[in-house]
């Protein structure tokens, strides 16, 4: 009976620690993903400027170069561009994406959709540059939030678990 009690307490402690750590991890992942998006946009800008390849091909290449989640967005977008316009495909891919980016981040990225594949080269490049600048500020915000919250939630999860265990012992 006592063994079962201690096992349950241990489980309780590990669950609350895991919850804390996973919340803390979310902040770090957001920064990483934002940086990845910025890199992808940079590649996109360079490609569009110098190679004149169609957008679906460029997107597919970017998807190969980026890490899983962000690469997936570009892959999905390039796939759906066969059936719909570039802007719609980009928005749909962002909506279906499975990332830790906040809604604001996604909205910033969606802002690019309106001009995608509709204006001339200069228009698109300037639009991409604008989005990159927005992402820059988002990265700064995310960094500040990360330093503020990452350690907090880790300690919070572990200490809360310990407190509950001590109360129930």
């Amino acid at each position, binding site marked *: 009976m006592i063994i079962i009690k201690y096992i349950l307490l241990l489980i309780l402690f590990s669950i609350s620690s895991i919850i804390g750590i996973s919340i803390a991890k979310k902040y770090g992942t957001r920064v990483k993903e934002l940086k990845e998006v910025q890199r992808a946009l940079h590649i996109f800008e360079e490609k569009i400027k110098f190679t004149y390849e169609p957008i679906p091909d460029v997107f597919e290449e970017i998807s190969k170069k980026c890490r899983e989640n962000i690469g997936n967005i570009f892959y999905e977008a390039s796939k759906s561009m066969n059936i719909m316009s570039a802007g719609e495909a980009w928005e749909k891919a962002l909506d279906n994406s499975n990332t830790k980016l906040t809604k604001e981040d996604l909205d910033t990225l969606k802002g690019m959709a309106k001009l995608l594949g509709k204006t001339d080269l200069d228009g698109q490049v300037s639009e991409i540059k604008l989005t990159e600048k927005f992402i820059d500020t988002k990265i700064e915000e995310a960094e500040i939030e990360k330093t*503020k919250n990452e350690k907090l939630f880790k*300690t919070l999860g572990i*200490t809360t678990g*310990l407190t509950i265990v001590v*109360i129930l012992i």
Partner: protein
Amino acid sequence: MNIDLLFKIAAIGILVAVLHQVLVRAGREDQAMMTTLAGLIIVLTLVIKEVSGLFSTVRTMFNL
């Protein structure tokens, strides 16, 4: 009286102090205050039985 109770209260005190510090550092004074209060209430519920025992002992001692 059980000595375990004392250790329990001490442990809760330490953990609540740590929580308070962490929350204050993160600029969440309100929540730090709330955790301190919660700790106080938990400790009070733990000792209330002992306090009532003390009162009844005093009453029986002086035949009140």
